């Protein structure tokens, strides 16, 4: 088989493939490490039983849904107290309850959100209205 102008096409194709996969080569071995949200705030350290509203796995996958449900219950239905499966009562408030323990927003919230490609200033836009905790950096 003979390719007309093969001496130009084949090197051209190779260069093209090289260029189009350049981002892959460029970033090879430079993958950002998976974030490890820090839970060692002073308040959490003092807790006898380190148990959030839901078990860790459920919170990790479903915290956004929980926050959304809490919002609806508080704002629409006026229900402000959440009784967890363990019978513990929580004040359903991001700004007054979640933050009380998780006062390290930059390590707890932002580390994952940034890793997932959600810029901290835009999505999720909790903190454009809710007041973020003061952190000692």
């Amino acid at each position, binding site marked *: 088989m003979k390719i007309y102008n093969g001496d130009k096409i084949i090197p051209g194709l190779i260069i093209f493939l090289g260029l189009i996969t350049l981002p892959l080569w460029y970033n090879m071995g430079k993958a950002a490490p998976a974030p490890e949200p820090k839970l060692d705030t002073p308040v959490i350290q003092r807790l006898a039983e380190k148990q959030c*509203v*839901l078990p860790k796995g459920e919170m990790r996958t479903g915290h956004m849904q929980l926050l959304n449900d809490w*919002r609806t*219950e508080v*704002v*629409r*239905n*006026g*229900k*402000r*107290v*959440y*009784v*967890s*499966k*363990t*019978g513990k009562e929580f004040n*359903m408030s991001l*700004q*007054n309850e979640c933050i009380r323990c998780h006062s390290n927003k930059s390590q707890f919230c932002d580390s994952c959100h940034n890793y997932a490609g959600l810029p901290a200033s835009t999505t999720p*836009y909790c903190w*454009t*209205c*809710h*007041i973020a905790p003061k952190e000692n950096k």
Partner: protein
Amino acid sequence: METSRRSFLKAGGLCTLGLASLPAADALAQAALPKVMANPTALVGKKWGMVIDMKKCWEKGKEGCKDCVNACHVTHNVPDIGNVKEEIKWIWQDEYEHAFPGQATHYNEEFIHGKKFILLCNHCTNPPCVRVCPTKATFKRKEDGIVMMDFHRCIGCRFCMAGCPYASRSFNFKEPRPFIKTELNQTFPTRERGVVEKCSFCEERLAKGQIPACVEACKPGALVFGDLEDPKSEVRKLLASHYTIQRKLELGTGPNIFYIV
């Protein structure tokens, strides 16, 4: 497989029984945790309202007293934009002719000259802002009649501002945070650019068993808050013993703020 009429009816009966037990199963499921409930210490009312005794405010209050306004705006992180067109107000002061435009007569001026009325959201019985809101961000709570906002849901269309005849609603034309000159109340959120805001009758304080911040801050006790449906409440006693006026009653919005003049 052949099914006899008899066995078919039997199975049908069993199925119906199963359906009938659904409500019972639901009730059982609801008792299980986790669950949500109202704060047991919350103030409970069927229809919150307010009586404002302007005489007390003018006679006993200090000249230029703005305690109620300041208390509210500090509590709710209300910004002070500094110009009338873009101002944000939850509770504010204005003159008689502006507050009660249909009722001013030629000679009212002598009696009421220069005196400011305390104005806030009327938490109407028939609120036009709720009717026009396309996203149901503004709604009227069935339990206690508070006209409330879900800021998360507000798209900033400002229909409610056009609908409200009392100018109780303000739009955030700018990012409000730089304009909050007092120290931020860390327990209450701010708003962001592009949402409307208004008085919420301190719904978050009622839920903790506290009266609204403006009522608490008024030293002469000119603001009285209470349940209009409860004949024994202080507001009903005041309404029974005083002649009161309401703002723009003729519009049929059913305002729930009453003024003793």
